[in-house]
């Protein structure tokens, strides 16, 4: 039995089970325990998540094209994008760093965007398949999200350490700002998605069996 079938919902914040009024009145229902808004499902979850997924796909383009980091020496300025950074570490034999940056800056964001799109499409199609696996995929998108920040932190730490007044300095490129936005926007996208939607096919299934039995 799902809570929604009885007109009940658990508070997103404190998990208190709240009975919602049958007729939708004005304003939101507040949790009697913690005072946050309670919804049967997160409102407009699919639309918001799609909007944020599309926004981060667009932001991901300048994040890759523009430089992450600019190294200024007396010999001139050298700018590195995410990819050119990875290639540089591969060429110099630092396979560990190359793979950490490749995973954090390329695999993780792309995987997240693909997973969220897949979850959204499967929910919109009311797919009854692999619910438990899809729920696990959703938990995975929530967990891996913040690990893309590694590259932004590396830039920040390099800025702090390679700071030899005028001789050699490292600066953050515009790509880093866009990349940061990709990370933040995909994290909010994952928060906007309501995993309960994955399990919402059962009303339909029940109606179908009822119809068959009638």
């Amino acid at each position: 039995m799902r809570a929604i079938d009885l007109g009940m919902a658990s508070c997103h914040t404190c998990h208190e089970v709240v009975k919602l009024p049958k007729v939708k009145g004005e304003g939101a229902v507040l949790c009697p325990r913690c005072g946050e808004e309670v919804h049967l499902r997160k409102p407009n979850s699919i639309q918001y998540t799609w909007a944020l997924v599309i926004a981060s796909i667009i932001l991901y383009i300048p994040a890759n094209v523009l430089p992450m980091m600019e190294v200024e020496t007396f010999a001139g300025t050298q700018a590195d994008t995410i990819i050119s950074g990875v290639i540089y570490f591969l060429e110099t034999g630092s396979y560990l760093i190359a793979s950490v940056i490749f995973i954090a800056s390329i695999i993780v964001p792309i995987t997240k965007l693909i997973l969220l799109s897949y979850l959204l499409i499967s929910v919109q199609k009311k797919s009854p398949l692999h619910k438990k696996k899809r729920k696990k995929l959703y938990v995975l998108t929530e967990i891996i999200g913040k690990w893309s920040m590694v590259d932004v932190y590396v830039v920040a730490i390099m800025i702090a350490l390679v700071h030899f007044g005028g001789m050699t300095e490292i600066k953050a490129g515009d790509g880093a700002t866009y990349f940061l936005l990709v990370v933040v926007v995909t994290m909010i996208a994952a928060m906007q998605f309501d995993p309960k939607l994955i399990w919402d096919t059962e009303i339909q299934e029940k109606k179908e069996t009822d119809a068959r039995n009638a």
Partner: protein
Amino acid sequence: MGEMAEKIICCHECDELLRIPATRKEGRLKCPRCGTVLLRQKKGMVEIMYALSIAAAILFLLTNYFPFLSFHVVGNTSHANFMTSIVYLFGEKDWLIGIAVLMTTVIVPMIRIGLMLSLFGPIYHGIVPPYTIFALKVLSHSLPWAMLDVFLVGVFVSMVKLVKMGTIIPGLSLWAFMVMVFVMAAMQVVFDPQPLWEKVDQRRREKGVA
């Protein structure tokens, strides 16, 4: 009465409704449909959380007070504290990156440690503080934005990057920071807000009667 002995809970991932005995005190409970852990009910949670939050608070102060890393290249040395990168980022007017690094590595972890300490301190001594609801709400919403563990990986990557160019001298702050990451990870594993929400319920009931 039958209804007194049972309470209803709802899986926050898949919306499954469950009836559980109201007297249930210990052990994990998983959602029978989707497998999410719904109740942890670990014994000694308050004591462990109190100890860990004291440790985390001390380590946080050490991390932000002592030198973090020094970098030495032929005749030139630069020293960095934990927050040096943020100062330089603001200096270069990289506001967004500066704010993001400041929030995720300093402000949010500081708020979380402070709230944990101010919750579990009084609760350990048998007092449910009046700000419990507020603290639990902030702890719930801020969790994804505390990224010290990610920052630690960033520190390792930067060190490997720079070790070829010169000498890196780790400071006391770095060691404190590494321990703090593990202490905070342990806090996240042990932390279970549900018994605290029940204390809030209890207080609400008592007030209702009085």
